[in-house]
Structures are given as C-alpha cells and as structure tokens.
C-alpha cells in the first residue's frame, strides 16, 4: 500500500502574530517554524503506525513550498516515512497547492492520501476536499480514527454532535484530527536516517491563483477585564444580563 502524507509548515503555536509591509505580509521575524500539528501528530504518526503493522506500506511525504520548507520536511522524515517530495511553489492559494499535490498524487498512484484537518495559520481546511474533486476519489473529513483492512479503509469522522464510522474501498483521501494517533518525538536514529532519505524537488507547474491576500488586521484589543468580587455573584449575573446581554 502506498500512502501520501501532506505536510505543511506553520508558525509555532506560541509565535507572535504580527504583520509588515503595510499589514500585507506576515512578519516572519523571529518566528519558529513547525510541522502543522494536525499533519505531524495525527496524519504522519498514523501513517507510521500503519507501516509498523505492515512492512509493505510505503510512505511518501509531500510539501508545496519554497526551499525554507526543507527543515520541516526533514523533521517529518525523521519521524518516519520513506521519501519526500517538495514542490517548489510558494503560493498561498489553496487551489494552487491542491493542484500541485494532485499532480504528485496522480503520478504516484497512492492508495491513501492523508492531510491534516486544517493548517493552524490560514485555517482553510480545504486541501483534502479539493483533492477529492481533482482526483475524483472518496474523501472523509475531520477523521478521528483510521484502520486499513486489506483494500478497505474504516474511518470514523466527526459529525456535528457526535461521530460516524464508515467503510470505503481504497483509494481514499482522509483529513486527520485528534484521536487518530499520539504525538511522537523523533529519536536520534530517525534523525540520522532522515539525512539520507531521498528528498526530491519538483518544479512548480501551477501559477494561476484564484485568490489574493489584500490585508491583515489584528482584532481590537479587549478593553480590559472587569473584576468582580467572589462574594458578589448577583452583580456578575446582572452584568451578564444587562451589560453584556448574553443571558
């Protein structure tokens, strides 16, 4: 079975969010980059677990991004996976990214494609769904469990107010979230092995973006907390009713 895991690079969860160039660009100054947590903790680790159960599983990683994404994809290789592909396209348009990944996916004829539920920077939650249309394959979004049984995938996904389990033949695209696997830390052996694993660079083939970012804004700062004495809960209820008007 061939698995393709989509890996994206995001700012660390504690990174300071600031903008430059007249609020049109994310300020990368001093930002630490990480593997998008959904890609790392859930989809990649689940793929590795599948390979640990069945040595015939081959894992390829793909990232669409400039050369500065290489440390991230190397870190992903250190966790596991057989080889990586970087598509040299730094577009922030999901449609462009999805088309680049679709081209790689067609070439590699994967049985299973895993993405994260969303990236924690642009929060698009779009790539998996776009791949579903571009590849005309089954797609299950926001999955919390994934088992493979021969040529069948058994996937549990989140629905509003609960969970649903479904079966599908392979190939299938699954976007992964919490529940799928437990976070792992790369070990020395993995880090050493990653240095010699193949990392192929493919030139960009898609140029036409469908969207463009015009401007960023930070939310208006809270006017400051109003402290209420712990013995005055009637006062808090009154404020929630009459000032905030939320109850």
């Amino acid at each position: 079975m061939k698995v393709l895991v989509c890996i994206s690079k995001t700012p660390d969860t504690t990174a300071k969010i600031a903008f430059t160039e007249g609020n049109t660009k994310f300020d990368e100054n001093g930002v630490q980059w990480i593997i998008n947590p959904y890609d790392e903790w859930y989809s990649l680790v689940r793929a590795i677990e599948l390979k640990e159960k069945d040595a015939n599983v081959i894992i390829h990683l793909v990232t669409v991004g400039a050369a500065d994404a290489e440390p991230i994809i190397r870190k992903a290789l250190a966790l596991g996976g057989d080889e990586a592909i970087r598509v040299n396209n730094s577009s922030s348009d999901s449609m462009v990214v999805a088309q680049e990944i679709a081209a790689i996916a067609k070439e590699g004829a994967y049985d299973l494609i895993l993405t994260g539920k969303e990236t924690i920077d642009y929060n698009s939650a779009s790539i998996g769904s776009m791949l579903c249309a571009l590849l005309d394959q089954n797609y299950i979004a926001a999955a919390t469990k994934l088992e493979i049984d021969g040529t069948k995938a058994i996937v549990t996904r989140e629905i509003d107010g609960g969970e649903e389990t479904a079966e599908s033949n392979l190939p299938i695209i699954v976007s992964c979230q919490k529940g799928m696997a437990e976070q792992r830390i790369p070990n020395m052996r993995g880090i050493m092995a990653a240095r010699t694993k193949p990392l192929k660079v493919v030139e960009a083939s898609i140029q036409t973006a469908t969207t463009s970012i015009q401007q960023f804004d930070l939310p208006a700062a809270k006017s400051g907390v109003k402290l209420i004495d712990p013995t005055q809960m009637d006062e808090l209820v009154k404020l929630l009713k009459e000032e905030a008007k939320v109850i």
Partner: protein
Amino acid sequence: MVLIYIDQADQEVKKASLEAISYGAALAKQMGTNAEAIILGTVKEDLSQLGKYGVTKVHQVANDSLNHFDARVNATVTAEAVKLAGADVIVFAHNTNGKAIAPAVAVKLNAGIVTGASALPKTDNGFVVTKTVFSGKAFASIKIDTPIKVITINQNSFGTQSTEGTATLETLAVSVPTSSIKITSVNKVQGEIPLTEATLVVSGGRGLKGPENWGVLLDLAKALGASTACSRPVSDSDWRPHHEHVGQTGYQIAPNLYIAIGISGAIQHLAGVNRSKTIVVINKDPEAPFFKAADYGVVGDAFEVVPALTAAILKSKASA
C-alpha cells in the same frame, strides 16, 4: 444570484444553515440580487419556511440516497445543481459537512474560495472576504478573482435573522452517482447541543483537579442551559470526553458567553475560544494569563465561586 447550501442531518435542516441563509440574503441585498437556497436529499421540514430567512426559492435534489452524507457524491451533485440553478456566489456554513464539500465544489466550478468568513464581503471594489486566520489571532482580507465565488461562513459570526416570507420550491433533476462509502455506525451525544452550535459554554481546566469535581461545573451549565467544554490536558487525561476539547488543536468555538473555570489561558487554548463575544474567567490566580483576554473576571476558588454563581443565576431566573 447568491445560492446558499442547506446542510441537513437525519432529514433535519442544520441550524448553521439558517445563519448561512441570513448571511447570503444580506450579501444578495448588498449586491442588488436575490438569494436562493439549495438542498440535497429530503427533509421533514416545510422548505418554503426557509423564506423567513431571506431566500425566494429553494432548489431541491430530492433523492433519498442523498440523506447520507458522502463528500464526493455530495460535492458532485451540488456542483451540477449549481450549474443548473446558476449562481455568482455560493455560501456554505463552515461546519463539518460544509468544510468537507465547499472546496470540492469550488474546484468543480473553477471558483475561488474563502473558508471561515467572519463578516460580509466588501463588494464595492472587487470581492473581498474577511476571514479569521492564525486560529482567531488575526483577520485576513482575501480577494476572490474568479467570476464564481464560494464562501464558507464561521458559525456564530453573523447571527440568524428571520422576518416574514415564504420560498417557492423547485426540484432539480440531477443524476446522483452511487455512493461507495458505507456508513456502519453513528454515535451521537444524546440531548446535548453540539459545542460548535452552542451560544453558552461553560468550560473547565486542570484547576478543577479531577473528574470527580466536575459537578459544580455541570450544575452551572445546567442552570444556564449551556454546553460544556474543557482544556486539552483535561480531555487528554480522560477526565472529560474528547469532543469537549477546545483550542488550537480542538474545537474552535464562538459562543455568546464562554465561562472558563480553572483554565490558565495558554495561547493554544485561547486560539479556540477568543472569538467568543463575552468571556468570564474564574481562577484563583490573579496572574493567570486568561484574565487579559476576559471581559469579566473573578479571582477566587472555583469550588466556592462556581456554586455561588449557579445560585445567583437560579435566583435571577426565579425572579424573572
């Protein structure tokens, strides 16, 4: 025309779709056009009543097999139906199903898409949609450059407006591909409002010390009619179920009221709740970072403050 996708589950219209209609109707008005809706499958409700939220027509692909959600089938049928109905903008709720199909529909219609919109687009000079990015820590204004546009709207960011009106019904003849996904089980949390739809949320953190202490929180939630949530370490330790975990790696919610009890307010937690309209923080440590993000704060021991708050709410309800 602005076309709004109506999401259904168990043959009932999802609440998030009513907000999507209100948003789509307001957008149509702004653009000087009309708003219509599209629904896949069959529902128990009288669809003409959706007119109350501002649509003049409801297009229906009335095939029972569509009552089971399959992203691939659903996106294919939706795209075909949109081609028949004709639309300039298609609006989806940013809920589980909306997220699963809107981007696929956008691909099929060669449309640009913005997901997670938090306000009406600006349409005076191009088509610019504002969305939350960096998990609620910032906004981005994104221009869609294609003739057809797709938007998903963040839940609880626009509100639902209803007036008078009925919609006409039109059945669309679209061929429905056979689903190759077999649903084997559905597990719903009984009787609770899903967190993402809740307008009032009471949430607990490690400050409550253990699952056996959740009673005070549940009593408060019950008095308010609120849903319950928790921080990540709480669900990781199985004190509370995983579907209550909010934050960067859990649910991102935007209720009218979020009450945080014994939660420190780590940046990853705030990322899931900072879009809440009003935040109340109850914490015994006056230095807890959460107070900086709060509207109202109570510095005190949760085991004393929370029962007192519950009593005050019950008292206020009894006198109302």
